[in-house]
């Protein structure tokens, strides 16, 4: 998975490309741990994300919890397959998905 980072003031945009699964989710976890300090607005751009597994979902939920404490989080450009993952696990209503 490729993570492209755009940081401006208190906003952080992470563009995720490829597969977010068991083998790649530690990479996202590491990036979030490194970058979230002082961030008030986190945007996860999933435009080029092809696959999301439970491991990836856990990292996204953990990021949401962190951002609930320090600001807000938005997920954007979600394709149908990944939206179905959010829907059928029941998490779509606690995430802000645009």
């Amino acid at each position: 998975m490729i993570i492209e980072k755009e940081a401006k003031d208190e906003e952080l945009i992470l563009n995720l490309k490829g597969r977010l699964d068991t083998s790649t989710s530690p990479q996202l976890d590491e990036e979030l741990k490194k970058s979230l300090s002082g961030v008030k607005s986190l945007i996860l751009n999933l435009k080029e994300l092809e696959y999301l597994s439970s491991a990836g979902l856990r990292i996204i939920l953990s990021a949401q919890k962190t951002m609930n404490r320090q600001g807000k989080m938005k997920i954007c450009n979600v394709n149908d397959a990944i939206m179905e993952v959010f829907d059928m696990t029941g998490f779509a209503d606690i995430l802000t998905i645009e």
Partner: protein
Amino acid sequence: MDAHSEMLLNQFKDSLPKYKIMRDAVMKLLKETISKNGLFVSSCSSRIKTEKSLAGKLELKGLKYRSLNDITDLLGVRVITFYSNEVDKIAALAERIFDIDWTKSVDKRKMYGSDRFGYMSLHYICRIPKSLYKDPENPEINEIPFELQMRTVLQHAWASIYHDTGYKTDVEVPTEYLRGLARLAGLLEIADEEFKNIRTDLGEYRRRIRALVKNGSFKDIPLNGDSFANYMELEPFSKLNEKIASINNAEIEQVSIRPYLEILIGMQLKTLGDLEDFIKESSEYAYQLAQHQIGGTDLDIISSNIGIQNLCIAHLLKHGHGLKGLEWFYDQLYGKQPRNAQRAKRTYQQAKKLAIIKEDLNA
């Protein structure tokens, strides 16, 4: 200003650091006591009289005061409560922690007799007892009086606006405006009483609902925020959630169920009894839907709302609301968005395979 007043003013200037120490001690004691006793107040504030304000007071009646300690409002503390009966509760706490000078304290709520309305506030002149606070460097702090004002938010609103007019006493106010202020004081007294009654009645209602839920008398309980919250303590969806979780041996992440109350009411469920029937009637279909959706995946984490989400879908389809019903559901859950039509279509197709849909009344 006469020489005596000037001396008092200079004494005050020199004593300012002591007043600041005293203010901090009073505020700490008061806030801790209020919090320990489980009371929530609108605000708890303090001010030390400005030199300018004291100079003005001394200009007017300087000879009245022999020493600085005769001026009881150099430190003023104010507690603003939400409800009128809480003024007395705060007063009881103040009596417990401070030494009260009853000769100078005044209950201005009782000043007007039964047929007049105006400023309503309870004023205590207090000192900090040595048993609660001792400062070896400033032992005189225990001798300095301070004024504690206690009143409700509405009484405070009236007092602030009255103060803004610039008048200090009723005799200064032109008669026609005095009548207006008195009418407003009366109106706010009624409002204070009503707020207090609503709070008391609501407390009683909540206790009754809690008891009814505990007894399982669901048919008699209207579905609303209070009954729903009490019912949720019985974890009515946990059995279904666990069954769904067992499909993939998934972990259940606890999330808030609150957004669903409005949806359930929108689905015409009127009592907790209706909600019980809703769970009993649709649980099997809700489970089948989840099995169809996540059974073939490796998803091993689900939200604690998965059960109620699938119950709503199953209920709507079983009752013939079809595609339109699903679209309505997703609009309620996620807010109106173009994607909801697609969501509804996908869920409808999945449900079709499970024979959940009896007859689509909207088709």
